């Protein structure tokens, strides 16, 4: 198994080596047993679901889209299995519809405001920015509450104070340092999201620090810088060589320039996504169990590039194929390193049991995200 370059250059510890499946080593702590995630969805099946969803959403002017989302999520959850047990998506369409109406109203308002008055748009942008941490927490809580495995629900413990610190307040030093703090901020945000999730009476833990996040980002920045410099130098040379006095630069050169820079950006982005994805999962724990993610940047780049070309060339008809392909790859590269039985989770106690709290909570149940 070959690690993507960005990952292998990182400074964080190697993920734990895969143990033998049946390792009868006489030690006090039994070695963790890897349980791979499996994804069974098929492109043909999902295409039918997707196209019918889309057609019904169009015919109902978007109202059906909430039902469509539930159906889609149920399909993806239900086809993702761990230890042979599929996940379940439990949300009902109506709260999702409400959330969508709010989101669409905000978005349309924002776009139209941009056409009418700059100040109105800035005001709306400010409002949306101020609301973002709150919406993030609400969204995470919604998704967690309606995700279940082995008959047990996930939970997200809302902590608005920390959300505002990590998603808004940290933005100030981030801007003041011209983005140099970005990996640190990212590390704090990921830690926030992971550590506030609960499942089966256990809290998720996050062991990565900002020090783990810096290497991939620094490498990505360095590669991008080199790419821009070398690319600009080469293209300038080509432009000078091909230049005829009085002529416009050849169209092919202009497009080549754009393709080269977008392509480079795209490739680096794919490698970075793989590196950060691995980093987050490989430092996530729940109780005694760990995760192991082995995404490869090159493979991810191949999938993203293929998806992009396919979706564009098919006028969107291959979107289902693209989504299934990505979900399958992500699932098959992810495993839980279980120390002991995965069945030994207990039901959550606390807020979930309180029916009144759940009711009040569900008044603000909105899953924002277009």
């Amino acid at each position, binding site marked *: 198994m070959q690690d993507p370059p960005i990952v292998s250059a990182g400074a964080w510890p190697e993920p734990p080596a895969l143990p033998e499946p049946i390792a009868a080593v006489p030690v006090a702590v039994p070695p963790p047993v890897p349980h791979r995630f499996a994804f069974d969805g098929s492109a043909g099946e999902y295409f039918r679901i997707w196209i019918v969803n889309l057609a019904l959403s*169009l015919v109902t002017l978007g109202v059906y889209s909430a039902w469509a989302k539930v159906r889609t999520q*149920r399909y993806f959850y239900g086809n993702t299995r761990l230890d042979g047990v599929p996940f379940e998506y439990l949300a009902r369409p109506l709260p999702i519809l409400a959330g969508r109406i709010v989101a669409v109203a905000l978005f349309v308002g924002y776009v139209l405001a941009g056409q009418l*008055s*700059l100040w109105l748009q800035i005001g709306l942008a400010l409002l949306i920015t101020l609301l973002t941490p709150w919406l993030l927490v609400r969204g995470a809580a919604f998704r967690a509450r309606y995700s279940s495995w082995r008959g047990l629900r996930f939970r997200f413990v809302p902590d608005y104070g920390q959300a505002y610190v990590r998603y808004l307040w940290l933005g100030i030093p981030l801007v003041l340092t011209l983005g140099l703090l970005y990996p640190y901020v990212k590390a704090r945000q990921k830690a926030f999201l992971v550590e506030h999730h609960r499942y089966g009476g256990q809290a998720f833990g996050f062991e990565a620090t900002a020090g783990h996040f810096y290497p991939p980002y620094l490498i990505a920045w360095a590669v991008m810088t080199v790419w821009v410099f070398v690319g600009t130098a080469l293209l300038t040379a080509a432009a000078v060589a091909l230049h005829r006095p009085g002529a416009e630069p050849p*169209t092919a050169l202009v497009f080549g320039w754009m393709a080269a820079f977008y392509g480079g950006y*795209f490739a680096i982005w794919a490698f970075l996504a793989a590196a950060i994805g691995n980093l987050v999962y490989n430092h996530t724990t729940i109780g005694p169990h760990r995760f192991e993610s082995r995404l490869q940047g090159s493979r991810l780049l191949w999938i993203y590039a293929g998806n992009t070309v396919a979706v564009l060339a098919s*006028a969107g008809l291959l979107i289902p194929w693209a989504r299934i392909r990505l979900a399958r790859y992500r699932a098959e590269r992810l495993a839980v390193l279980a120390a002991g039985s995965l069945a030994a989770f*207990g039901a959550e106690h606390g807020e979930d049991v309180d029916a009144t709290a759940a009711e009040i909570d569900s008044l603000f149940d909105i899953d924002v995200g277009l």
Partner: protein
Amino acid sequence: MTTHPTPLQGSYFDGRDGQRHAVDVDLAHGRLRVRGDRIERDEPLDALTITPRLARTLRTIAFPDGARLQLPDAACLAIWFPHRNRLEALVDRLERYYQAVALAIVVCLGALVAGYLWGIPWLADRIATHLPAGVEVALGDQVLALLDRTDLDDTALEPERQAELGERFAALAAGLPDGADYRVVFRGAPSIGPNAFALPGGSIVVTDELVELFADDRQLDAVLAHELGHQVGRHALRQALRGSFIAIAAAFFAGDVSSASAVVVAVPTVLLQNRYSRQFEDEADRFAYAHLAGHALSPSWLGAALRQLDADLPDDASLAWMSSHPATAARIAAAKAAGADFVAQHPQYAGDEPDLVLAEEETGGGPCCACCDDAGCEADRENGDADSGACTGCSGDAAAGDDGDDACERGAAADAVDAGADCEADPDACAEPTDAEAGADGTPR
């Protein structure tokens, strides 16, 4: 209700811990019976809910106490739980019939195309109609203020020149429905170059570079008439609204693609918006032809203006489908055709035409052979005398020293040498009308 002959196999989770219990499920006396692996439950069906059928995914039966039972879909589940989840049951059936799926594809693609061709323009235009004029003016002022901060400088034109051009503009705008609201502003724009654009609310920005580029003020009149076309049609506002709707639609689309969405969506968005823009340009061109003709100016002045702009900033006709403007060559040809029409209807203005042809024939080598196809000449033939003599007659005018219309000249040339093949064989025959025109050229100036 009957007992199912063979029990269904499922996984039972009690909702208190993650333990999986392998169980057999069947129906006994109207109650769901769950047996196996330390589980023994009987539950009335009415107390249970079941997740709707979805492809090959497992179905889940939920118990009132939070226990969940997962089992593969089976025909008997529909019998045990009739009339549940009617909407999703219907959708599930649609997904399983290929005719319904095919219909869904047609609906989606049809809606996509119809929405783009008619839906978005209709909606945007409705909103544009109902938007108060004050909003439009404020919007235009804002755009101008923004441009003034970034790309535009104060004009370097002398006040007298500005006043002179302002009067020409006022004469052009007079008589239009909202003519009093339209105004022209001059700005220096070294980074933009020769250009003119219509802002929402009636302002037309003309760059100094454009004023200086044109040798003849009638070229500027033609450009202003084109921009007035944008104003009369409220194109700036309508284009902005249409563009916004495309962007909104693209955002939804991107949400579905969810991979590299920015790049995937940005390019088609711009291409789609540009098609609307090209339609508006065509509309403004057509308005300009009519408006110029109404002011006793030949539409071919727009062609002359475009020709000069094209010489300054050439465009690539092969990329016209992705541009915000139609191909310049096509626009020039259309303007010339409209000019020929105009002259045919108002022969008294025949002398006041731009010297488009001259520049063309001096630079382009031997275009005379293509001239027989020239739309302008065809139009002349139709509008003039019915027989082919019209062209020669036209040519006769030119010989009299008054006519600058190139189309007829060249048509006449082709007529004179009988056929294109002869023309090629004898280039000297082509040179003749060019000379005639060169002589005719000086008069309008």
